[in-house]
């Protein structure tokens, strides 16, 4: 993984230091130092992972076991049937499909148009380009509430409420300032000589974009796609404001609805164990995607921070 590649940069310095002698205190101290570092790394990993572990374990318990005092770590008998049960008591399958649909379509729109706009900012000269770029960056600061109210009124007027259009269509207009910035920065790092060579061979702007720049930008495009997919999957405010019908919910608002009703037991026990199973099922796809895309993703995030 990339972490090792990153870390290996420091390895040479280690061997550069001569241990003056085995019994000399310097090397002994170093060993103790390393030991403490490992201890810190392992214990902080445990702290970071604890909420996950606790949630997964809770999701496998019987409903009543969650309320035992003192709390127990392991489920008595792992209740794997809790997971299918979530699909029975709420429209989990529908919500998962809705989230997937919204996230995929809007990711497609956002990445495609952000690439076009990034290309425009990186490779063309025209009046007001730099001003427009600064405006683009400053929209990152804008609180959503400033635009949310008029957008709500506008979407209400044209009959878009309770549809996916407010969640999807804006993505086809450049996605977000962050994506545009990411794409632009990457295009700037590609030598312009490539464009020129293609131009001399008679390629037009579209062809240069599509056949020269985009194939070279697969890592950054993948990063952009994964980041957008994740943020769409997690997005709460927009679907919460714009969707009303329960079967149209995405997972983020579905799980909140579930949380609001989980405390009320309509049969014998509250459903917190199922709520925990639901949280696991909402988080798992994101973690899987992260593992698949990890190498690209870390580079992409780092690039956005470094070249800024």
């Amino acid at each position, binding site marked *: 993984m*990339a*972490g*090792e590649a*990153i*870390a290996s940069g*420091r*390895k040479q310095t*280690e061997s550069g230091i001569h241990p003056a002698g085995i019994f000399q205190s310097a090397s002994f101290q170093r060993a103790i130092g390393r030991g403490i*570092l490992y201890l810190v*790394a392992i214990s*902080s*990993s445990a702290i*970071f992972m604890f*909420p*996950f572990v*606790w949630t997964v374990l809770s999701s496998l318990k019987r409903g009543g076991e*969650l309320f035992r*005092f003192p*709390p127990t770590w392991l489920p008595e008998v792992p209740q794997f049937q809790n997971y299918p049960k979530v699909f029975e008591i709420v429209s989990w399958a529908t919500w998962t499909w809705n989230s997937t649909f919204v996230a995929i379509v809007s990711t497609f729109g956002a990445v495609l*148009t952000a690439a076009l*706009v990034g*290309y425009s*900012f990186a490779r*063309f*000269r*025209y009046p007001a380009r730099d001003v427009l770029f600064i405006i683009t960056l400053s*929209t990152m*600061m*804008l*609180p959503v509430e400033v635009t949310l*109210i*008029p957008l*709500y*009124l506008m979407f209400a007027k044209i009959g878009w409420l309770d549809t996916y259009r407010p969640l999807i269509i804006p993505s086809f*207009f450049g996605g977000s300032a962050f994506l*545009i910035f990411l794409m632009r920065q990457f295009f*700037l790092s590609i030598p312009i000589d490539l464009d*020129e060579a293609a*131009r*001399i061979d008679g390629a037009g702007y579209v062809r240069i974009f599509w056949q020269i720049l985009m194939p070279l930008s697969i890592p950054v495009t993948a990063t952009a796609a994964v980041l957008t997919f994740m943020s769409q*999957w*997690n997005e*709460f*405010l927009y679907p919460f*404001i714009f969707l009303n019908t329960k079967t149209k919910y995405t*997972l*983020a608002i579905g799980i*909140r609805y579930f*949380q609001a009703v989980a405390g009320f037991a309509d049969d014998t026990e509250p459903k*917190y164990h199922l*709520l925990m199973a639901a949280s696991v099922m*909402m*988080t798992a796809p994101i*973690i899987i995607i*992260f593992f698949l895309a*990890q190498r690209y993703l870390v580079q992409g*995030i*780092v690039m956005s*921070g*470094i070249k800024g």
Partner: protein
Amino acid sequence: MTTEATASSRIPLPRWTTNLRTKEAIAGYIFLSPWLLGIILFIIGPMMTSGFLSFTRYDVVNPPDFVGLKNFIEIFTKDRLFWPSMMLTFRYALIVVPLSLVGALSAAMLLNQALRGTAWFRTFFFLPHLTPIVASAVLWGWIFNADVGPINHWIRTITGSDNAPGWFRDPDWAMTGLIIMAMWGAIGGNTMLIFLAGLQGVPQELYDAAVVDGAGLWAKFRNVTIPMLTPTIFFNMVLGIIGALKVFAAAFVATQGGPAYATWFYALHIYTRAFQYFEMGYASALAWIFFFVLFVFTYVQFRQSRRWVYYAGEVD
């Protein structure tokens, strides 16, 4: 930042140059057009609308009624939740951001020590950041459960007394709970990765030179690492503060702004006025005040940054 020569400037220019230039500009605008339209339709247009609405009463049913500065006057003088929510939001940001910067930098330095299994540690630190905020609010709600949650169980075991915080249902502790939840997601996230890259970018010669001058660990950290990282710290700080001031979903799901308005963040206040009471004019005024405050705050940070941020590539 934005001075890149494009192709046509280097090719020997024929007579129809101006024509080429115009062509390039037109093509540039065509590629830009989705965003140009998007900015007009979804950002500038709505901003102007909400600017206008902020001077009106508008309940969605009846047409907007122009009332001048009345909304703003009411916000500053009569709105009992305005100042508390503003203060609380800033307090939250000013606690979460420094703590998560320190935490993220420490984590990044730990990962930069060439320990075995660094890739694993990095993944463990990063996973909380990936958890959807709603899911994280749900699971922390359970972990902080006052009666049967594991945290309170440990607190009771360690202190030996039955008194443990009520967390999300206790006005004195709800904010602390949200802060812990936010730190869990923030410390190992993008901030840490950006710091890690920043650390790798510090030239080794500087450390070597410091060692020759007799610097110990602390002196190296204080006089080499920190100054070289100031641009990264600044970048993370500005983005962190903007993000923290906008907090909504975490509080909305975990505490609904309560108990007793203890976590009534500014974004929650706007949301309630707009989408519970349908006071669109009033809520727009609240939103514009927020935008103004955020803008001024960010501007001040940029001004201040000249005093403490060191750019290695910059010529004085």
